[in-house]
């Protein structure tokens, strides 16, 4: 009896010494078709809550202190603001028509929103919800990324196939960089020096130098046994050390792993169907991938690049973000 208990205790100790972070992250997944956001505890991988949101929730972003989560409710033309402690929607903000993706500036004062149906970017004062500017860009703006130094913002417009550089002081578009067809996401490298822009139909990722506004590198992907037209890059995330990038490839059902210094594609991770957006755990050891057509989330171990587990979420999962 004694021995058995001791063995059990050892087993428990081994389990808890597992690589899992001791303090749980909270994972938020927006379900475009259910009008909900699924909230998952990263330790138990259990659904903590399903938040009812406005219609067609897609892009999500936190305030820098992680106290507020902003959710684009596209068909209701608003942002739902969630208190991340109580998991309740505490207020809504007028976002302009059809918000798709958004970003909050590093000071937490402003929210930059892509208004997909109308071809402009709305800038809100976060506290008051006051509209500071509506900036015309190309047709179907989607990707939004505020530069880490808060000097400018990159918006992509899908049909126009451009990355627009917006001056955060004057709210003027200062440059338009033509990329491949249907750019979806803009993401700054960890050092903030370059911005990666994925082109869904073009099948490439353009790496743009914000200083020269030139494309310094264009990444393409090739997967044995997968047709070229199914390789549709959307989401881009960098590991904590900034050395590795993950690019979600949509209907190719894979996430590409890219070595950032050399731009070499190292491998492809098979996940669920049509992955678009991804998020890293707070400690950087796990990558969470929202799979649009299988209604689930794949958990990938960043060290081994192996998919470890799949967790069911709502219908048509779209965006995914993680709160430490």
């Amino acid at each position, binding site marked *: 009896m004694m021995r058995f208990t001791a063995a059990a205790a050892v087993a428990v100790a081994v389990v808890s010494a597992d690589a899992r972070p001791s303090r749980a992250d909270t994972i938020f997944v927006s379900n475009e078709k259910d009008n909900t956001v699924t909230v998952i505890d990263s330790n138990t991988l259990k659904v903590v809550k399903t938040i009812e949101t406005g219609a067609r929730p897609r892009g999500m972003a936190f305030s820098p202190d992680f106290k507020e989560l902003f959710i684009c409710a596209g068909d209701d033309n608003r942002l739902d603001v969630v208190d991340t402690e109580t998991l309740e929607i505490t207020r809504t903000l007028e976002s302009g028509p059809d918000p798709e993706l958004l970003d909050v500036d590093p000071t937490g004062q402003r929210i930059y929103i892509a208004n997909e149906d109308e*071809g402009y970017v709305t800038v809100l004062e976060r506290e008051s919800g006051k*509209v500071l500017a509506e900036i015309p860009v190309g*047709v179907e703006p989607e990707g939004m990324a505020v530069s880490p130094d808060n000097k400018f913002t990159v918006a992509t417009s899908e*049909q126009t*196939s451009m990355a627009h550089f917006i001056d955060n002081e004057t709210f003027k578009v200062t440059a338009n960089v*033509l990329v491949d067809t249907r750019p979806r996401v803009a993401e700054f490298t960890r050092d903030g020096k370059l911005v990666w822009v994925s082109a869904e*139909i*073009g099948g490439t990722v353009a790496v743009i130098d914000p200083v020269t506004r030139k494309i310094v590198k264009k990444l393409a992907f090739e997967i044995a046994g997968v047709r070229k037209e199914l390789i549709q890059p959307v989401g881009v995330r960098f590991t904590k050390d900034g050395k590795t990038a993950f690019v979600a490839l949509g209907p190719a059902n894979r996430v590409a792993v890219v070595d950032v210094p050399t731009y070499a594609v190292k491998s492809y991770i098979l996940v669920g169907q049509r992955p678009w957006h991804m998020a890293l755990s707070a400690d950087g050891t796990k990558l969470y991938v929202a799979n649009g057509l299988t209604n689930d989330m794949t958990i990938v171990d960043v060290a081994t690049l192996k998919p470890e587990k799949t967790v069911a979420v709502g219908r048509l999962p779209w965006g995914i973000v993680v709160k430490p």
Partner: protein
Amino acid sequence: MPGIMKLGSAAALLVFVGWTAAVRPAAAIPEAPTEASPGALVTKILYVGKRYPEPLPLSLLDKPLTDEGVQGARLAIKENNMTGRLVEQHFDLVEVIAKATEDVVPKVKAELAAGNRLIVADLEPSDLLAVADLPEAKGAVIFNVRSSSDELRQQDCRINLFHIMPNWAMRADAIAQYLSWKKWRRWFVVYGTTPGDKEYLAAIRRAAQKFGAKIVEERSYEFDAGSRRTDSGHQQIQSQMPLLTQGAPDYDVIFVSDAGEAFGDYLLFRTYEPRPVVGSQGLQAVAWHRSFEQYAGTQLQNRFEKQAKRFMTERDYTSWLGVRALGEAVTRTAKNAPEEINSYILSKDFEVAGFKGVGLTFRSWDHQMRQPILLTGPRTLVSISPQEGFLHQKFLTDTMGFDEPETTCRLNK
């Protein structure tokens, strides 16, 4: 007193200005620019149509339209200009629409002579070929956004003619792939009497052979089933359709060819045997449909409905796509001479996004635009072809329609 008055109105003005600033801050959103900025590269796109007599839709749910096609072109021009203003380019749509009694060809001839040689043609085949064969049209770029005629892609192809609308062979193949996946391989073909009906019939025969289906019988329908305005016409139709479909050998589906929309819709739920109807009615193969929302299709549906106050039809879509393809070519190359456009849209650098999840390109051998084809029921999207498993060494979409080895088109004309 007057001084106070002045002060009061100044304060009121201030309050007013403050209020408007809060509600409509910064710059108001400009619509797509309607005029070119100085120095911009200006591209004129000619939209040519004619008010051909068209049969009224059988269903009262479909309204007769007078602005089909051109509304799509207008939307695409706005979108081209939203992009254009960022790169010093401007696009104008020149609309030439002939009356039913007018000859459209001289009108186009005059426009060609005036230098408008990028054309979106919403024309029937005879007018389309007459335009393409004008001496002034040599070197022009003409997009067919209306006709599905296979002959235009085969023996009647032209070097200055490109086809955005899917042809009959593409449509029949798109349905055939789905039927093959369903293992519904025995087809009972019912066809009407218009030229379009005969062309689609030929495409159905071809598809059966190509995908290994069996046509158990072909039957023509030569009566006028009744018009959309016939009160209590349903009794007659209810007895006619079983008669029409009675006594055929065992079959899985009725494949109907009624491009002229005389009776096809009446087959649904009225056949002698309980079988699905596919083809020109029932399960249809189309380039666009209101029930389609994937690949951001919702965005285009929304924009179109906001502008036109009605649903976007297939011809609105092909007209939109034609103008967008020209816009894409000009934006990418910063050139707008027809010769430059012609070589660019045939190059491997060209692709245009049309909300189908893949880039759309032209076949070099007959200038048909490759595209996935929507398979729709009356109310919802059923599938999208090409179907899984139909492979091609270059483009999966080349499994539908005329592939290079089978083309009879000779483009050196």
